[in-house]
């Protein structure tokens, strides 16, 4: 195990350790960061990146320690070192860029005092070769990367302080770049949060924070890096640029005074004015990307900074051999908490995948029974809990579980509206093919554009369409977007004599069967609606009212006092709906389309919440075509009136007739599966 320590407990010093840890771990080394060396509280961004490395080292025998200068170690770090059980032949290396001889000597001495042995000193840069960023702490290596084929869109990353975005000219320059169809613009910023108006102006081209960018993974998402300035603590930017250079990516130095180029690094001096960047790209860079990559590969400056050289200089032990290659897996991650609609959709798609494709899931506990019933293996994820120290603690744990579960080349399929931070990081760090399944019908929201902008992390987006055209978004241009027909469950399970079985199970006559599926959970409390339906059914002899929920959902205890009402927790709601006389349902994507495609008479009660889809529009589209009835979510009087009309006024028969004759578009289950598999071939 290689322990990396900063010279002091501070965020910049710890971030530099993270950058070095990332470099070494990518090369296969077993790296650890002492949690006692991390500043507390560690910001969320660093916490994700540090999580795989953070360790409690008490009681462990340590053989390798690397300490990053450029100053003498602080008392906190000395305490860490004094607490280590160092092996007799433990090797301690000090590296960094020391401002003067005395600081270097004092740094060496401070380590010698704390450990009782002399450290080895490693210069952060090869002799006579100036550093790319003199203020950086860590030595940088240029990990070899694959050259990209330059036939498609080029990823253009622009690095700048967040405050640059508020400059109207700079902002306009970014917007102009974002409109180029042959470029995919990715601004990367640092420093205090950007002005909200400036961010809004950028539309879908939202910037990413530099702290969210794992350096060694960046080359997969970058063809051209433009550096407009350098941060005060530049280790992360240094790691990013070295990763780019190692993979032959073009780095344009647009800093004032061309500070990067002055180091002798193979970077190109570019215009500091963003308005001039486009012609520079068009005339100088884009036609010559291949030649630039060859120029970089030949650069003597880079030759002394290879990953192998760093490992040799640090005298690192041989890294563990990489794990044996396995067949790629399609790993689905549905995002549900209480409900399991996303999991249901993923299972339906997974069942359409070719037999040769290994399909696995990572899902929250409420979804696991359903997924396993479909025959898929599933890794359990951890749901949020108010008992956790931070609201995102579960996401960090899930990040670690997913990181362990995924292998290079796997296909990662995410189904959900909110792309978790863990998912964003995984998509950047791991060599994956990625698909985002996101249904449409979003409600208007101020940050909708930014939410949808997370699609940039995915290779492909699949949008399951709604059954009715007016509910679908207009076609999206650019990017790898695909619309498929509605994802709908096939035939329900065996329904023969199901009503007889219900009669036997509940010891209740079933002359009329009413099924309620109103959702609930985090979105809304439906107790009053259920009580109203239960009260109506109670007055009808021979009527059985089933309140159907997903396993794990909670129901108001008062429902148990009704004689004609029973609660059913099941993952097979479709079978119950199929034998019902009438269904009272929310208008979520899955249940809505199951109801339509299986021609089930329904009274919709849309469930609306700011973070949900627009169920009112969906219900209204069906009701307007005479395929269902609907009442507003708060209209209890109308609910009982409409339900009575359906049961007593012949409304059910009318709905059945209309449903039987209405043409619905073909389902998209198989098309979605093919789109996912295409990426695996």
């Amino acid at each position, binding site marked *: 195990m290689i322990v990396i320590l900063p010279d002091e407990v501070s965020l910049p010093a710890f971030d530099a350790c993270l950058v070095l840890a990332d470099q070494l771990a990518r090369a296969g080394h077993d790296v650890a960061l002492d949690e006692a060396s991390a500043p507390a509280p560690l910001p969320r961004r660093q916490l994700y990146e540090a999580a795989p490395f953070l360790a409690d080292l008490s009681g462990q025998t340590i053989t390798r320690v690397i300490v990053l200068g450029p100053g003498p170690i602080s*008392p906190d770090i000395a305490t860490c070192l004094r607490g280590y059980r160092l092996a007799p032949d433990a090797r301690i290396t000090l590296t960094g860029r020391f401002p003067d001889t005395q600081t270097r000597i004092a740094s*060496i*001495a401070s380590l010698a005092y704390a450990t009782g042995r002399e450290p080895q000193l490693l210069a952060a840069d090869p002799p006579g070769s100036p550093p790319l960023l003199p203020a950086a702490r860590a030595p940088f290596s240029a990990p070899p990367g694959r050259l990209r084929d330059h036939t498609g869109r080029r990823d253009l990353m622009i690095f700048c302080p967040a405050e640059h975005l508020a400059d109207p000219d700079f902002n306009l320059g970014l917007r102009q770049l974002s409109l180029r169809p042959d470029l995919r613009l990715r601004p990367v910023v640092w420093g205090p949060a950007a002005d909200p108006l400036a961010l809004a102006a950028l539309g879908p081209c939202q910037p990413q924070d530099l702290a969210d960018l794992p350096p060694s993974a960046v080359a997969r998402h970058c063809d051209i890096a433009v550096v407009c300035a350098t941060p005060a603590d530049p280790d992360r930017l240094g790691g990013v640029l070295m990763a780019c250079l190692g993979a032959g990516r073009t780095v344009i130095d647009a800093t004032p005074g061309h500070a990067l180029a002055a180091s002798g690094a193979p970077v190109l001096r570019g215009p500091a004015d963003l308005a001039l960047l486009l012609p520079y790209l068009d005339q100088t860079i884009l036609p010559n990307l291949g030649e630039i990559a060859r120029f970089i590969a030949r650069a003597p400056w880079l030759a002394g900074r290879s990953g192998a050289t760093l490992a040799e200089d640090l005298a690192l032990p041989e890294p563990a051999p990489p794990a044996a290659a396995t067949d790629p897996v399609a790993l689905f991650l549905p995002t549900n908490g209480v409900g399991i609609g996303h999991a249901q959709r993923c299972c339906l798609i997974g069942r359409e995948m070719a037999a040769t494709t290994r399909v696995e899931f990572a899902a929250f506990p409420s979804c696991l029974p359903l997924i396993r019933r479909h025959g898929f293996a599933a890794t359990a994820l951890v749901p949020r809990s108010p008992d956790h120290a931070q609201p995102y603690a579960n996401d960090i744990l899930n990040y670690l579980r997913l990181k362990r579960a995924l292998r290079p080349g796997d296909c990662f399929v995410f189904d959900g509206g909110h792309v978790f931070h863990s998912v964003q990081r995984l998509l950047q760090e791991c060599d994956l093919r990625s698909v985002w399944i996101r249904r449409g019908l979003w409600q208007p929201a101020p940050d909708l554009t930014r939410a949808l902008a997370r699609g940039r992390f995915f290779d492909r987006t699949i949008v399951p369409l709604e059954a009715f055209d007016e509910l679908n978004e207009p076609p999206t241009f650019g990017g790898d977007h695909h619309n498929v027909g509605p994802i709908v469950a096939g035939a329900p399970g065996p329904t023969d004599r199901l009503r007889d079985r219900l009669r036997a199970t509940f010891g209740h006559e079933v002359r009329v069967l009413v099924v309620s599926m109103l959702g609930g959970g985090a979105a809304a409390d439906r107790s009053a609606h259920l009580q109203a339906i239960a009260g109506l059914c109670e007055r009808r002899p021979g009527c059985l009212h089933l309140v159907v929920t997903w396993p794990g959902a909670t129901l108001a205890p008062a429902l148990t006092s009704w004689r004609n009402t029973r609660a059913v927790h099941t993952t097979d709601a479709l079978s119950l709906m199929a034998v019902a006389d009438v269904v009272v349902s929310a208008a979520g994507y899955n249940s809505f389309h199951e109801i339509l495609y299986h021609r089930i008479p329904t009274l919709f009660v849309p469930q609306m919440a700011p973070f949900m889809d627009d169920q009112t529009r969906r219900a209204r589209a069906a009701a307007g075509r005479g395929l269902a009835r609907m009442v507003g979510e708060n209209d209890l009087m109308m609910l009982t009136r409409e339900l009575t009309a359906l049961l007593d006024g012949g409304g059910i028969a009318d709905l059945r007739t209309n449903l039987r004759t209405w043409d619905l578009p073909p389902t998209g289950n198989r098309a979605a599966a093919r789109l996912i598999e295409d990426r695996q071939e």
Partner: protein
Amino acid sequence: MSRPTAPDLAAPATIAWLIEPRFPGGTSFAVAAEWRALRGLARPAIHAFRSRMFGTAPDTPALAEALRDMNLALQDVGGPIGADLVILHNPAFLKFETAPLPPILCRDLVVVTHENFLRPGGAPGFDVAGCLDRLDRATLAARKWLAPVSAINRASLRDWCARHPAPAWRIAPEDWFNICDLPRRPPPERPADRRGRLSRPGAEKFPALDQLDLCFPAHAGANLILGADSLIAARISRPHWQLLPFGALSPARFFDRIDFHVHFTAPTWQESFGRVIAEALAAGRVVLTDPATASGFGPGVIGCAPHEVDAIIAGLIAAPDRYGQMVLDGQAWLDRLSPEAFRARFLRQFPPPGRIAA
């Protein structure tokens, strides 16, 4: 900047001290004692160079007190320093300086090297070359001396000079020892297993924790660690240890509460002298320390390893007479570090002008 006046050979010799008046510990005590010891030999001038090393720290009280006693003024360095002899104590204070030093014009420049130039193993103790180079460039002198404070210090200088040829500098033939004019107290009649250590809290002053455990075990009657600031900050403690920050007790009260001063440092650092060891001896206490440090003292200071401490202490508790005799012999040895001895040694190396002329 005024031009220095030429030396007047008919006048009494002049000695100028160029000091950093904020050095804590042994350096400042030695300087103050030196002024008193050389009183009347020459016309003294004291120049204060407040270096970047100590930032805004106040002057050390021991120096201020000596200046007051001797009716001397402390002059801030503002221009050239001229004297027959210029004495600079501990050049390490120049290690963070970047600006040129004021010109120094003298017959002899003596740089008293209170800190070892090399650490055990040969790594530099500080930027010696940088400090000496700054002094060398600033000084016009017939002779430039490096004056070690002890045999250990001398060896360190020799090793350093062997690796970094410095032809401008000569190593003084005799040690410029730290004057220890300390009040003597008798040894305890029946020493008990009461152990302690007193040092500044720096990391270099402490051995590894397992070694500290050997020095201060649970079965000892008392384990008093004064200067334990870093242990306290790191929440390292033992039920049988009493940890006190530096300065929480006066040295006299500290020595009242122990019978054995157990003084080990990080193995990667070496005391150049160890004033606290002399203080313990003068207070009538036996000292146990590493053999190299012990070699700079006489009886009463036992060189050993931490794992040998228990047996040595047990042996001396069983033989209180031997303990007492060791202390008395050690105190007699301390006479070698008296002001009189220093004055005599100084005059051997730097005789008055008349004798020089002869």
